[in-house]
């Protein structure tokens, strides 16, 4: 009897011991613990005040004193370096450019993460990264076997760049969205020669710098557009080996076609200066202003036409979606026209267009933050709570919205209750007019999670097949030699691309000179480093 009792007690003890740590992430009362001071960097468009809603919430709930550092996105590295060299490494660093990560680790200022505490305090974050691509993204935060960073993944970037056509022009010329490279060529010729805008003047072209991505994709590579602003070094696996996209044989073949197209006059001679003339980056002014008829620029949601899919409005009815940011501009200039999104045309080496990198940032931490167990626990808990905005677990999601946005129905409502997607109401916009830009405060406290929320927009993009056919960069971040040399190399690559296309240089005759010049500018160092990285980490 006594034995049984003892056994029962032992089991009961064991059970409570098992249950308590699991529940602790939810129920810890931080107010009974020490008040901690934490310095934080994150993304915001305007410096938050001390009494910004989100900051106040975090300070009260987690019994901390948050010092939000005023780091501007465009001078991030400069300012962060100053802080670090002055011995004031921020506790939480949202490293905007993952390429800088290795050099910060080398500087010895970052702390090694205690994964057990992270696992206990931030289960949503750990589980989401574990579940995404077999947890392979964790590797980006590991240096010499030690974890220094948490990868932030932009799940929306699984969709490739949009292949946009002026639908009105296609309809007028009796053409369909092309599916093969030959059809694509025919459409471009028609756009150029058959006066699609009907103004009686021969002033239109097929495509410009961004549209060329469709041609490169038909040859299986993404050497980037030549405007020097939207692309960095692209590495791809060619025949099982990492290769710099813009020195591959495929690119060489594609360049010959591009030159031929240029001679035919279907490439806008102004492609050299790019399609965007300033302002919002995703706009292609060339297509908006009827110079060209197709482009590959921005993201799918920039080009969504009004009514492409339906949303639930505030009255709970189905309503047409609004035009995307660039579509809106297109419609303002051409009110009676429309654009259509197609798939990249199929050529000799398949098809595809660029996808943005999935690895968006790396979150890393000061030594002070990781070596002080109390502080590290608190940081993990804050990141976990603030990351509930990305999860599909209904209870966590509702809790997040109710504590931060307020009353359901008044300030927020379901856009899709089954899929667990909320939206704010017009009442919210009225009561907090500065919410998106100002006093509301930063929302990205922890890493964005690799969970693609099934919003109506994302469902639509999946339905038109945009999850497939993206050309993904092998390097989701830049290694030191790449970071050091890529500006020079990219600049040379762009200059030569223009010369090859216009015929100032001959693809066959000058190819070796081109490759040599790139190598002299540091390309061979970049390639060597990428190969080493690939064989040591990826080719298992």
């Amino acid at each position, binding site marked *: 009897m006594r034995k049984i009792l003892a056994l029962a007690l032992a089991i009961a003890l064991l059970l409570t011991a098992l249950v308590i740590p699991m529940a602790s992430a939810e129920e810890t009362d931080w107010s009974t613990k020490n008040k901690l001071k934490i310095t934080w960097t994150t*993304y915001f*468009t*305007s*410096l*938050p*005040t*001390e009494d910004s809603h989100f900051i106040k919430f975090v300070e009260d709930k987690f019994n901390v004193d948050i*010092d939000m*550092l*005023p*780091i*501007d*996105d*465009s*001078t991030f590295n*400069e*300012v962060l*370096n*100053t802080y670090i*060299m*002055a011995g004031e490494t921020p506790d939480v660093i949202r490293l*905007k450019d993952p390429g800088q990560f290795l050099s910060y680790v080398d500087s010895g200022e970052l702390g090694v993460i205690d994964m057990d505490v992270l696992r206990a305090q931030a289960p949503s974050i750990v589980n989401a990264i574990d579940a995404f691509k077999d947890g392979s993204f964790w590797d980006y935060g590991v240096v010499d076997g030690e974890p220094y960073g948490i990868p932030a993944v*932009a*799940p*929306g*970037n699984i969709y490739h760049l949009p292949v946009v056509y002026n639908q009105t022009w296609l309809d007028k010329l009796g053409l369909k969205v092309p599916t093969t490279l030959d059809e694509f060529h025919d459409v471009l010729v028609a756009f150029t020669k058959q006066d699609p805008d009907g103004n009686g003047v021969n002033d239109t072209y097929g495509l410009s710098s961004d549209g060329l991505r469709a041609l490169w994709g038909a040859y299986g590579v993404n050497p980037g557009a030549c405007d020097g*602003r*939207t692309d960095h070094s692209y590495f791809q696996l060619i025949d099982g080996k990492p290769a710099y996209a813009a020195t591959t044989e495929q690119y060489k073949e594609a360049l010959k076609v591009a030159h031929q197209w240029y001679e035919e006059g279907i490439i806008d001679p102004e492609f050299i200066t790019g399609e965007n*003339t*300033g*302002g*919002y*980056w*995703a*706009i292609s*002014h060339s297509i*908006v*202003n009827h110079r060209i008829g197709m482009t590959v620029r921005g*993201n799918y*949601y920039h080009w969504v036409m009004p009514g492409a899919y339906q949303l639930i409005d505030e009255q709970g009815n189905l309503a047409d979606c609004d035009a*995307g*940011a660039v579509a809106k*501009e297109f419609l*303002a*200039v051409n009110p009676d026209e429309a654009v259509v999104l197609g798939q990249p045309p199929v050529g000799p080496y398949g098809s595809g267009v660029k996808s*943005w*990198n999935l690895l*968006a*940032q790396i979150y890393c931490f000061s030594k002070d933050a990781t070596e002080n167990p109390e502080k590290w626990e608190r940081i993990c808990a804050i990141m976990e709570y603030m990351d509930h905005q990305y999860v599909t677990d209904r209870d966590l999601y509702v809790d997040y919205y109710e504590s931060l946005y307020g009353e359901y129905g008044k300030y927020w409502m379901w856009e899709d209750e089954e899929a667990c997607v909320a939206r704010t109401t017009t009442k919210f916009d009225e009561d907090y*007019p*500065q919410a*998106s*830009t*100002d*006093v509301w405060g930063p*929302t990205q406290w922890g890493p*964005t999670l690799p969970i693609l929320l099934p*919003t109506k*927009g*994302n469902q639509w993009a999946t339905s038109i097949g945009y999850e497939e056919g993206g050309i993904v960069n092998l390097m989701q971040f830049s290694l030191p030699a790449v970071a050091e040399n890529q500006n020079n190399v990219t600049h040379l690559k762009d200059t030569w691309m223009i010369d090859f296309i216009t015929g100032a240089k001959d693809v066959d005759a000058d190819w070796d000179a081109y490759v040599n010049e790139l190598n002299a500018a540091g390309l061979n160092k970049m390639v060597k480093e990428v190969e080493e990285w690939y064989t040591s980490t990826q080719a298992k």
Partner: protein
Amino acid sequence: MSNTTKTLAREHDHARKIKRTIGEHFFDKFNFIFLGLLGLSMLYPFWYELALSLADADKVALSKVYIWPEAMSLESYKNVCSDINIWNGYKWTIIRTVVGTLVALILGFHFAYVLSKKYFPNRKFWTGILVFTMFFSGGMVPEYLLIRDLGLMNNIFALILPGAISAYNITIMRNFLMSLPDSLEESARIDGANDIIILYKIIVPLSMPILATVALWTAVGHWNAWFDAMLYIRSSDKQVLAITLRRIVLVGTNASTTSLSGEQMTTNMTSETVKAATIMVATIPILCVYPFVQKYFVKGVLVGSVKG
């Protein structure tokens, strides 16, 4: 202008007209057109921003070039003016500009006056010390450490004191002061004036052109400065206007923001009209200063730079 001078001027014009050759005539025309176009190319971007700021964002295509928007709206200005950061920014920018300019002028002018006196002991050495700072600086990190250890973080003086002594401005002022004849000082001294009276009653009134010039440079510099404010000012209610302006204008111009998810991209996008309105609100006050100091400006720079 008296009648005689008018007649003289007319005769002078008349004489010039006769003398002008065809070449000169065309040269003048060309100058007129060329400089006109040059001026226009500088004015138009400003005009464009003004037109954009008054445009109705929902009705007008923002990427088109136009003289005047077809649909007008003051919505953008309403939007900008309701931003608490703009008003806070104004307050601190005006404080830093006024105090910063005064401090720089008072310190700088006295420094320059002393250096302009040939009988000042070790003049070369002190000038050398000053000029040295023009070519060598401690760099960003030491400067940051200095400001921090002086306890000036989050303090308006972190923005005023580091720039209070500008070697370039002091050199310009020194050169101007050296161009004033020594006899002024001597005659005043014979009349019984002491050093203080000579400086404030004789030299300062004569130095208005250079004071106005340097004041304008310093004031515009303070008005536009942002990097120091980003480093040293931690709380948003003490932040200057230029920082707010930067944040509003730079959002979305750069593809690197694509790392954000789709939802954030669209909700956080500031419209171009609001950006334009912010630019207008932030630049018009400092532009208004120019006409008042313009008349001193050219004179001040010229005299200050010629003599060495």
